[in-house]
């Protein structure tokens, strides 16, 4: 389980102290979920040794939320997750936070969250481990990459968020601002990042915001996240990497169908003794159509495109410069799937992926083997929640 940092522990103690105080009954809720996946792929491994069939994809979560006062709630979730070699972290404290909604008016509200909080970046980052809240079994890899080893860094952070919401006519505007102080990377985070980097890796201060507008059946949002890593050894700085993520999201929800599209622009900038100075801009995006045949059966289709370098979309320049394989620099993923929710507790998913290009292949799940740039995968998941 992840170690709980001191400020977070203090916060939890405050929460527990508050719990001991009141003479009236506290309102609380407990929820949980469990999902088991199966992956069968051809060409490359996805979440374990999936070319032979892999059950190495499961998620179990249990959370509790207590309302200390109408304005102040405390909430925590423990998560046990495994996703091939990209996530071996096992049991972890997923979030643990206090949320104080200090302002509620008829036309808006505002509040602050402190602790280990989920980062609401894009439409799905904050709930990416709960299959019931995802757009399918596999998240669109152009925006929510699982294989690159940085999901944990983007997913949640030990820090604070300010949030607010305001209604203007038919529009409902909301904003979230987040900050987390820098910290040293945990061993597991280092391992999935590539492992080989020597020295001390430290995550820089972390900032993000998301602006959102909802009107009619529409939802539009813009997210920005800034993160960085420094590498030091014996007091010498060996390198520094900075990342800027921009995500634009748009969704239209109608009675029978919804259309969702998101675009990611990722700029990275760095200098190190291993790489020399570099600068790169990658991007990608997807569009997904969900069609509710009945409230219980929803087929969906998605087209997803990822480019490691937006100025070299077919990878030819990369191939000429480095001798590497140009197919590793992009990925196109066509997905067809179906979701069946027979009742309020159970959910079943099945989806097939046809993929061209290697940009989204997980290096960890395919270590030591030649990857294939035309590949496919079938994913199945059964899940329960309460």
């Amino acid at each position, binding site marked *: 389980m992840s170690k709980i940092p001191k400020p977070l522990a203090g916060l939890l103690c405050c929460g527990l102290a508050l719990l001991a105080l009141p003479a009236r009954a506290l309102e609380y809720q407990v929820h949980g979920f469990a999902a088991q996946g199966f992956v069968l792929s051809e060409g490359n491994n996805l979440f374990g040794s999936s070319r032979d069939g892999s059950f190495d994809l499961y998620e179990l979560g249990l959370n509790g939320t207590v309302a200390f006062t*109408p304005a102040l709630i405390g909430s925590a979730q423990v998560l046990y997750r495994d996703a091939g070699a990209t996530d071996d972290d096992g049991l972890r404290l997923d979030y643990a936070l206090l949320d104080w909604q200090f302002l509620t008016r008829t036309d808006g*509200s505002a509040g602050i969250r402190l602790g280990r909080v989920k980062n609401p970046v894009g439409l799905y980052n904050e709930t990416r481990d709960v299959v019931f809240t995802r757009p399918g079994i596999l998240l669109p890899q152009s925006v929510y990459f699982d294989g690159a080893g940085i999901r944990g860094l983007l997913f949640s952070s030990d820090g604070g968020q300010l949030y607010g919401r305001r209604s203007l006519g038919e529009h409902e505007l909301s904003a979230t601002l987040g900050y987390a102080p820098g910290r040293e990377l945990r061993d597991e985070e280092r391992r999935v990042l590539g492992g080989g980097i020597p020295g001390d890796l430290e995550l820089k201060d972390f900032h993000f915001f998301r602006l959102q507008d909802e009107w009619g059946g529409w939802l539009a949002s813009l997210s920005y996240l800034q993160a960085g890593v420094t590498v030091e050894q014996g007091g010498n700085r060996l390198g520094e990497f900075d990342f800027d993520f921009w995500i634009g999201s748009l969704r239209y929800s109608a009675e029978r169908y919804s259309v969702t599209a998101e675009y990611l622009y990722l700029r990275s900038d760095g200098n190190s003794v291993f790489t020399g100075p570099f600068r790169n801009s990658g991007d990608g995006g997807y569009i997904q159509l969900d069609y509710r045949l009945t*409230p219980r059966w929803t087929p969906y289709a998605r087209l997803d495109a990822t480019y490691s370098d937006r100025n070299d979309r077919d990878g030819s320049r990369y191939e000429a410069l480095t001798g590497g394989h140009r197919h590793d620099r992009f990925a196109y993923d066509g997905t067809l799937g179906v979701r069946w929710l027979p009742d309020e507790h159970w959910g079943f998913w099945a989806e097939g992926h046809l993929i061209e290009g290697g940009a989204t292949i997980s290096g960890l799940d395919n270590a030591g083997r030649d990857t294939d740039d035309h590949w496919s995968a079938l994913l199945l998941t059964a899940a329960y929640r309460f």
Partner: protein
Amino acid sequence: MTTTCRSGTRASQARAWIAACLLVCLGLCWPAAGSAEAVAVLVAPDHAGQPINRALLRSIFTMRVRQWPDGRPLRVFVLADDHPLHDRFSRELLGTYPYVLRNAWDRAVYTGTGLAPSVVSSEDEMRRRVLATPGAIGYISGRGPDGRGEIREETN
């Protein structure tokens, strides 16, 4: 010995409460006049006078606010996702669909930023629990603007 008397009081009290606390549906009812049935918001007696506009209603039923503007706790009651009245309420009063609400609740519950609403099994239970719970809000069916709707009649 006073059983009869008491239950009589209770019945008339209940009527008075329903009269007192109902509602706020005002102009939010079925836009199509003469429609068979309307759906109306039902609030607990302690917030009977609370002005509720569509924006606040949406914030409440998407579980984005947890307290009334006066700071007192809010308790949200809904019927099951596939209940026809829930469907009508989502469309007519919130301008959305049950599945969109469900997504919003899942988001709140699995990020620790909110509570899920309490699900009741019938309209009767809805009426009972909302009237008995301080700060509660829910919805019930009522007649269209042209009919002699119980709610309209007693509200105004």
